[in-house]
């Protein structure tokens, strides 16, 4: 077990180094460099000044030396500097991260929880109404663009039925009491979380229904039943655990997709998360921020994948190594 963990972490570190190298070359390919950005912010400058600045930033050195320097910088948490925001990229991303994490994690947890529940309930009565509902629901979940769903949800639950706020994450002015403030944020997050969760939920309920049907046909379930165990006990103690494995794996693997969805949902609901930061930086061609977001998202996914692997191993001791 310990060896597997070390191996997995080592692979994760290699992947992160790979992302840094990719980032470096994308930064090289991007039009303009730090000096251009600085001069543009300062309102222009002569070529001589530009050349001197490039020299002082080491931009006249060979590519491989720049790459090594860049690797070193990123490893100590320096992702570059945004001249538009006049802030280090790392600080910028960290200040936008809480919203995105809150949205992504709550959507993912809701999707896994209710997806498994729906799927299991549908599998118990495979010919019932609810089972058909899961089938149709998962079809729509596959076919609906998340950003469009967000807009429709806004139209219905913020405009025609004004139950929820339409934009942002805080009311203006903010309530005084900390408890009210937390409630206010939750109130703002209901619609975006619902939008993001419902599509993944549709997918997971289909998967968990299929896997539950598989498990319910297995020998050990028949054994459990012939032993005289009550039906709820069979389902909850024996079947559920095995049937939820594929959903957990999928949720871990899909974290990158959920993050992509969060970028769109945040843009639709104007939440101050990483999504709008990325979008606005692309419009402004602020490359250090753009690549910083890519790095941050990839690193989060790598860490989450390692955690999922370990959870999976803990849930299913039969699996010795996952590569």
């Amino acid at each position, binding site marked *: 077990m310990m060896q597997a963990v070390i191996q997995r972490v080592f692979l994760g570190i290699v992947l992160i180094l790979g992302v840094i190298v990719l980032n470096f070359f994308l930064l090289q390919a991007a039009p303009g460099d730090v000096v251009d950005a600085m001069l543009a912010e300062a309102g222009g400058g002569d070529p001589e000044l530009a050349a001197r600045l490039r020299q002082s930033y080491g931009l006249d050195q060979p590519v491989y030396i720049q790459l090594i320097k860049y690797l070193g910088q990123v490893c100590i948490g320096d992702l570059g500097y945004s001249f538009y925001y006049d802030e280090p990229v790392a600080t910028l991303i960290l200040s936008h991260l809480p919203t995105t994490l809150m949205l992504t994690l709550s959507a993912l947890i809701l999707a896994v929880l209710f997806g498994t529940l729906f799927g299991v309930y549908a599998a118990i009565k495979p010919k019932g109404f609810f089972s058909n509902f899961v089938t149709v629901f998962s079809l729509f979940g*596959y076919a609906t663009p998340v950003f469009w769903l967000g807009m429709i949800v806004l139209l219905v639950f913020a405009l025609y039925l004004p139950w929820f706020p339409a934009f942002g994450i805080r009311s203006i002015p903010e309530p005084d009491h900390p408890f009210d403030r937390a409630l206010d944020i939750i109130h703002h997050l209901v619609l975006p979380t619902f939008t993001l969760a419902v599509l993944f939920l549709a997918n997971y309920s289909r998967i968990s229904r299929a896997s539950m049907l598989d498990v319910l046909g297995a020998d050990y379930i028949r054994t459990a039943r012939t032993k005289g165990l009550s039906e709820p006990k069979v389902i909850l103690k024996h079947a559920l655990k095995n049937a939820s494995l594929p959903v957990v794996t999928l949720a871990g693997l899909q974290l990158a997709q959920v993050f992509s969805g969060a970028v769109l949902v945040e843009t639709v609901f104007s939440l101050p998360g990483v999504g709008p930061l990325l979008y606005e930086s692309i419009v402004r061609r602020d490359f250090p921020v753009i*690549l910083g977001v890519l790095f941050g998202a990839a690193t989060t996914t790598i860490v989450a994948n390692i955690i999922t692997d370990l959870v999976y191993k803990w849930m299913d001791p039969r699996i010795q190594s996952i590569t």
Partner: protein
Amino acid sequence: MTDIKSKDQNPFFSLEEIDSEREVKWRETLRLFCANRPALFGFLFIIVFIFVGIFGSILVPADPFEMVAVPLTSPGVGTLFGSDYLGRDVFVGIVHGTKATMIIATTATLVTVFIGITVGALAGYYGGIIDNILMRITEFFQVLPPLVFAMVIVAVFSSDILVVILAIAVTTWTTEARLTRAEFLKIKEQDYVTASRAIGDRDRRIIARIILPNAMPPIIIAITLRVGITIIYEAALSFLGLTDPDIITWGKMIGQSRDYFFDAWWTVTFPGVAILLIVLCIALIGDGLNDALNPKLRGR
């Protein structure tokens, strides 16, 4: 040589025999598919969409970029689906957008599938160090959030239609690669592959002519579903305004109406319904193929 009918018992049978056996299987699949009402309905509807995509600009010759009505006119007699913030006809936009949406989605799917199958086939067939390297590369691409990575590619290079197609392909091929690899790993142990190797077939022939055709059923289902995912993916990039500004697509119509949709629900609703419908039909076809290719798993 008493029994050469079963390939399980005797590996020395001709390639024609596998081919004809496969043909019988495909015919059975087609029959099962046509018996599936929703799948058939989806298929017919897709044909309507393709028809609109090809002949749309002839049937509705109006210019989708032209101002034809008062901005934000609600749906009615003059403008069937209303007009957007620049007074452009939403219906004309949807009809004209069909073509671009379909061309980008199919091309991007082809490129995605080509990369995925190539990587998966090489990894699965050769195994060992090649497999190891290719799978590490696949893992690398899997941890980059697809939409974010595609946004970065488009920002760094350009929003040219070719770059967009490549960005979609580069960020999504891993699913097909993993699937193809798994199929290859299963099939390469079969007797007929060993037999083909024994009579001296070269690797290229074994991969392309012997294993790949037998690995196709699950891959075809994946490709079908991929088309739908690509349509939504392209729509998302267009929605963010990252695709070619001169080409009208459904996603772009939704994105451009972002600041106005509280006053004009029709500007976002109708293009979105178009996306929803076409992808829903693709999902129905995918389900139909799944049932037809795996009759045992029906109803799952």
